């Protein structure tokens, strides 16, 4: 008997019951006998050299374990792209940002731990820090994309309008509600088990091996239930895990290293702030001639994932439009702030913010509707992107534009004199999966087992961080096997059990890993049926790049992404003209997701990502002081509440992609891109002023209105 397919059905979330009863176990919920508490002692200066680290001899250090850089058995490096970030800054060595880890402590109780921290004295020879982008001299990476000719002196051309504009975007904290944390447990044979809140078990695994000089088998990384990630738990957990492991190794017992909110806000990675400048040339009839774009992102004190973020920012910089002549010059620089890193959207929200507002500015110059201009410029089937990628399928630009315009209600102007209403629109694309040859290099692998009891077990390192990995992978397996959902189980995300399926990032899990699960399930079904293979047996599948995808990393030419997802957002705002306060009242989003494998979860991704973008565009502000964040508590770093959240309506447009499972494309990051420019356009519609900078705080809105 064939079971009805769960694909396209909003089946109950796998771990839903555990989450609504409180039974789900997050890192800090785990009871580990004999575990001590860990703490990180951090730099109080933004730049300098550590002259000395001294422990107060009046304190009883016998009750405490102290770890410095000298206790690192392997390399003093948090393994990622560049080997520039130390696990711990050492005495005599440099510090490059405030909150940089210098020393680790562990004790049996928190009181002793806090007391010990007060008896440590670190002296610095301070150096002059760099905080401003235009003062930064150290460059992490540069990218240049060019297509056609760059029209250098456009102003002399006849009937050509040139519009120039500069935009600025701010820092943003991921603000997963569960702070960072890991527990390290020493095990026999020199092994260390890490249980933590993390997105990418194998990132942690590699980093742990290198810093602690462990073999593959000695480093065991297990994901606990994870209370949100949004990129914030992509690379940073490697640092937390290494620190916990160093303490556990020296203490000879388990150590819990759980950040509180203040430490998490003050020390962990943020969305890259930056400046994006555009120079766009159009004919009087609106024909797009040339885009000249410069991007500068602030990487902060260490490189982390900055070059990859910059890459996605650069590739998306021209927006959802077809332009014959494009030049995109991007660079990421070093400053002495805490390092910036992965955050949903990964550079694309920054550059698309600028690209979308440029459409508005050009439309205003030409005196035409920006919606009509988008329709004229938009990438369509067969068009070529800035990297020279020919779009051969699943191009949803016009579908989402039409769907959003159709869904939106009639605009109601305000009848209050002090409150103005406005509406704005944006159209964006987002590359699903890794850039260029990323997937090919990674060769992500999954396993699927047919077990003797008639059930099937998926082995993957892809993590559930709220987005629905566990449910969607089981849906795909159950469908292909033709069995009920309850016949499919998932092995724990434990590096000693599951292969490296790649990190849970880049909107790749459903599309890339899901496809591998589907392929494995088809093979298992076939073997059970045709070969009558007796369980238990296991099938493994690794990603194979289709020959049709070509990418040249040196020239930035070719197929930057296997496919793009598309979204059109329409935002309605109210602006209080006496306070400058902006309230986003309604958000309509049409999304070309290829196929909604689980419609409720797909909508959940769009709504949650959209609200994160609303926060970035309006209220989430981090002010710097001497290289540290002033908004380092939840009382001062505000995110939208249920009262701030707009009414949201999501339209899922299914425009299948031939290599996605059932046509699905990755959409996890897409909703981060569109709301900010739509909101700024809506504020202009309401007030007549253009803001070139987000967040659009009341101060900025009022100042702009007054100076008009």
């Amino acid at each position, binding site marked *: 008997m064939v079971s009805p397919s769960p694909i396209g059905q909003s089946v109950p979330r796998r771990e839903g019951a555990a989450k609504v009863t409180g039974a789900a176990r997050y890192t800090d919920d785990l009871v580990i006998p004999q575990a001590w508490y860990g703490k990180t002692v951090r730099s109080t200066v933004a730049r300098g050299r550590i002259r000395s680290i001294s422990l107060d001899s009046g304190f009883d250090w016998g009750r405490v374990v102290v770890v410095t850089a000298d206790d690192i058995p392997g390399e003093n490096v948090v393994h990622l792209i560049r080997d520039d970030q130390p696990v711990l800054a050492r005495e005599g060595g440099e510090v490059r940002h405030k909150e940089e880890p210098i020393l680790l402590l562990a004790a049996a109780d928190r009181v002793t731990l806090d007391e010990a921290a007060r008896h440590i004295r670190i002296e610095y020879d301070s150096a002059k820090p760099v905080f401003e982008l235009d003062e930064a001299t150290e460059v992490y990476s540069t990218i240049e994309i060019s297509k056609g000719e760059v029209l250098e002196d456009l102003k002399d051309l006849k009937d050509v309008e040139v519009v120039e504009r500069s935009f600025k975007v701010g820092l943003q904290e991921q603000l997963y*509600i569960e702070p960072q944390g890991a527990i390290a447990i020493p095990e026999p044979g020199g092994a260390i088990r890490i249980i933590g809140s993390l997105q990418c078990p194998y990132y942690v695994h590699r980093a742990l091996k290198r810093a602690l000089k462990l073999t593959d088998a000695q480093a065991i990384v297990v994901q606990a239930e994870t209370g*949100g990630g949004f990129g914030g738990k992509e690379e940073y957990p490697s640092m937390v895990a290494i620190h916990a492991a160093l303490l556990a190794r020296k203490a000879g017992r388990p150590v819990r290293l759980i950040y509180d909110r203040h430490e998490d806000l003050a020390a962990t990675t943020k969305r890259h702030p930056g400046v994006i400048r555009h120079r766009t040339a159009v004919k009087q009839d609106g024909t797009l001639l040339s885009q000249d774009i410069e991007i500068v992102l602030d990487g902060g004190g260490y490189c982390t994932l900055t070059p990859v973020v910059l890459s996605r920012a650069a590739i998306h910089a021209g927006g959802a439009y077809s332009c014959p002549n494009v030049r995109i010059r991007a660079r990421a620089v070093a400053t002495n702030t805490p390092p910036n890193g992965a955050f949903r959207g990964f550079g694309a929200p920054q550059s698309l913010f600028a690209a979308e507002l440029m459409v508005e500015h050009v439309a205003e110059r030409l005196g035409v509707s920006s919606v009509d201009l988008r329709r004229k410029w938009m990438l369509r089937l067969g068009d070529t992107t800035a990297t020279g990628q020919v779009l051969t399928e699943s191009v949803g630009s016009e579908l989402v534009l039409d769907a959003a315009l159709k869904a939106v209600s009639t605009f109601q102007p305000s009848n209050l004199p002090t409150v103005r209403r406005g509406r704005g629109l944006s159209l964006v694309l987002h590359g699903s999966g890794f850039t260029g040859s990323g997937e090919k290099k990674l060769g992500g692998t999954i396993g699927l087992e047919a077990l003797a009891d008639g059930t099937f077990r998926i082995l993957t390192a892809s993590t559930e961080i709220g987005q629905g990995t566990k449910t969607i992978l089981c849906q795909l397996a159950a469908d292909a096997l033709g069995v009920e959902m309850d016949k499919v189980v998932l092995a724990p995300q434990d590096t000693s059990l599951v292969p490296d399926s790649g990190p849970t990032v880049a909107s790749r899990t459903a599309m890339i890993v899901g496809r591998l699960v589907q392929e494995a399930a088809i093979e298992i079904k076939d073997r059970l049926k045709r070969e009558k293979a007796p369980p238990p047996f296991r099938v493994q599948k690794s990603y194979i790049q289709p020959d049709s995808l070509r990418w040249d990393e040196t020239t930035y030419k070719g197929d930057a992404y296997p496919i793009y997802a598309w979204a059109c957002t329409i935002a309605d705002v109210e602006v209080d003209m006496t306070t400058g306060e902006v309230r986003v009242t309604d958000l309509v989003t049409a999304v070309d997701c290829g196929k909604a494998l689980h419609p409720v979860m797909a909508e959940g991704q769009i709504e949650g990502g959209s*609200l994160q973008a609303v926060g970035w565009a309006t209220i989430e502000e981090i002010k710097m002081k001497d290289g540290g964040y002033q908004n380092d508590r939840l009382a001062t770093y505000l995110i939208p509440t249920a009262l701030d959240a707009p009414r949201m309506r999501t339209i899922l447009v299914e425009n299948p992609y031939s290599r996605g499972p059932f046509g699905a494309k990755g959409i996890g990051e897409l909703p981060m891109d569109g709301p900010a420019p739509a909101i700024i356009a809506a504020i202009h519609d309401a007030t007549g002023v253009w803001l070139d900078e987000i967040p659009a705080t009341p101060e900025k809105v009022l100042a702009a209105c007054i100076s008009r």
Partner: protein
Amino acid sequence: MHFTLNGRTVTFEGSGARRLLDVLREDLGATGTKEGCGEGECGACSVLVDGEVVDSCLVAVGQVEGRDVVSVEGLALQDGTLSRLQQAFIEYGAAQCGICTPGMLLAAHVLLEGTRRPTDAQVREALAGNLCRCTGYTKIIEAVMSCGT
């Protein structure tokens, strides 16, 4: 000292100054109550004390002596089946990462006890002290409203 937790009398012998949150999690094993900020801003540690939503990170355990405390573990029915609200959270997709879910459920539970058919505005008001970063709140509001009678 004594108080009731999810209908059962519990005895606590430590310092009355300890946070209710820590006593629930560390002494009583009720780890469904989460710590998100420790400053009363996020609501992840929400519990009910005599039927009112409080942030258990801001309450000293001594303050609940003789009182009735309900945590997320007390929401399911006697026989262990999920309450209507818990079921609605699953059905409507109101729980994603799940870390805000216990507090959110308790805040919604109190609302529904007092208001049989809450409006969208009443639900938003009732949940305004509980931060969620995953859902954009839409599906949480839908789930709560679906439980109106």
